[in-house]
């Protein structure tokens, strides 16, 4: 058993493992199970939605979201709190993630690029958001966790409607 654990943690994170986590996250978000979503993150992780899809330096440029653990917690409280008129009721969403590429892979972390199509529905209106998503995943103990997620909407620089859920 011990030998087994060692051999897993010494081998690079596989694309299959990464996709399993990414799809789990997608499902949690579409079901608005935000508490479970929060638990997927590392303590230091950042959830980032830049205004400029070409920006690489997110901390010093304006974003739609630049969330550390505290901000993710506050955001979830806002979404489920029932007092925000824009998210009560929340929009429904269905997302598909595909076109996965493993850009970096080691035993402790990996970087995955993928595409996301999300359809939002609320009040007799559907909207489509397409985005390139970059995940940085890290392995702590046996678990794979989200360490950074950057969602680059292809129309990020345009006028957007309110997002009453998480991309």
């Amino acid at each position, binding site marked *: 058993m011990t030998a087994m654990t060692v051999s897993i943690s010494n081998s690079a994170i596989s694309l299959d493992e990464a996709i399993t986590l990414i799809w789990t996250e997608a499902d949690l978000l579409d079901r608005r199970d935000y508490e479970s979503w929060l638990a997927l993150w590392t303590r230091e992780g950042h959830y980032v939605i830049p205004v400029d899809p070409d920006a690489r330096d997110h901390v010093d440029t304006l974003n*739609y979201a630049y969330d550390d653990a505290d901000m993710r917690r506050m955001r979830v409280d806002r979404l489920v709190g029932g*007092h*925000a*008129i824009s*998210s009560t009721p929340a929009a429904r969403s269905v997302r598909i993630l595909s076109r996965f590429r493993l850009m970096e892979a080691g035993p402790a972390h990996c970087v995955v690029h993928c595409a996301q199509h999300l359809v939002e529905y609320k009040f007799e209106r559907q909207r489509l958001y397409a985005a390139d998503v970059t995940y940085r995943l890290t392995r702590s103990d046996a678990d794979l966790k989200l360490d950074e997620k950057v969602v680059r909407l292809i129309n990020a620089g345009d006028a957007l409607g*309110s997002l009453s859920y998480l991309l």
Partner: protein
Amino acid sequence: MTAPRLASGRPMSDLVLPDRIETAMYTDPDIFTAEMERIFSKTWVWVAHASEVPNPGDFVSSFVGLQPVIVTRDRKGRLHVLVNRCRHRGATVCERRQGNATSLVCPYHGWGYAQDGSLRGVPYVEGYTGDFDKSSLGLKALRVEEYQGLVFASLNPEVETLSDYLGHTKLWIDLFMKQGAGYPVKTSGEHRFRFPGNWKIQLENTTDAYHFPIVHRPFIESLDKQAEETFTFLGREGFVEDLGNGHSVMVMIPELIDLEANLDAPIPDRFLPLANELAKTHPPQEVRRIVRAVGGTGFNVNIFPNAACSMAFFRILRPISVRETEVRHIAIGMEGGPAAANRARLRLHEHFQGPMGFGSPDDVEAWQRVQRGVQGGPDLPLMVNRGLGLESSSVNHLPKGGVSAETGMRAAYQMWKRMMSA
């Protein structure tokens, strides 16, 4: 020009009374068309902040009412505002939002314009007769003037000076710019959104403190106790003043009118990490000045018809149709200021503004509810009488009401009435 009338023959200006406006103000396409002519083509309209075009050759796209314009800085550093329409057969000469170019070349037949709008190059010019006059075919130029980095343009060659137009707002704009903490104020990115509603719904909102504790409860709840206290300003000493020409100021947090006054007041808890960071490189008094500036001012200056200096950002509205409006929330920072301070400003902006902010989406929801709501009861008025009868006279001998009075809306609508009667 005769004053515009509704299809029924009534003058449009009749729709504004001292205490109420009629529903058609938000719904009648004829009124929207008249507003574009009588207001947006007649007075000063905010088009850019000077820091968006700092260097010769810089340009940024903008709008004056429905008309697309380009704000450029020429080789000599002068600002120009040009209609984005080729003088040949009308193509836009620029589709980029922002950039730097030595000339603007129309993609259709290649006419080239200098940054001051003058026509420089015409391919195969021998196809015209010898009296072809390039000097009369420059891009259409607007009047342009600047105050404290705010760049305004006007389609009206006879418009009064910007300084006269801004009048009593200038003092407040000066106070607003103190959030540079001695560094020049620069723009640092923006959130843009559209909502299905009339532009005047947004115009009203920047002088509406009444909605804050209701609509923005989730924002207030996300703050610590101290900040929650700061943002609980209804029933306190705040006020709204009519500043003339449709402009107004709404002071929500009187302690934050002059950011350089009372610098010895304790630093709020939520700014302590920033203060500690700055203390490594800055003397204590500078730390206090910068931290105070990062939090922004305690007031909104509403500049009729499309701009506001709103606490810690610029709010710019753009009418698109009678039922659609675009709003820009432009973040500001300190040019050359400490990175930690500018970073803190960005995070504060993201917290409230934008499609995922803790404030703006709820504003948008409320405004679109107004537009949906006024489809019912078109005969009912919209009431803007809050605080009427309780006002005093300001230092400028203009109405001054309590923080949640609708004094600023009345100021804007009286200006609207004046311009729509001319």
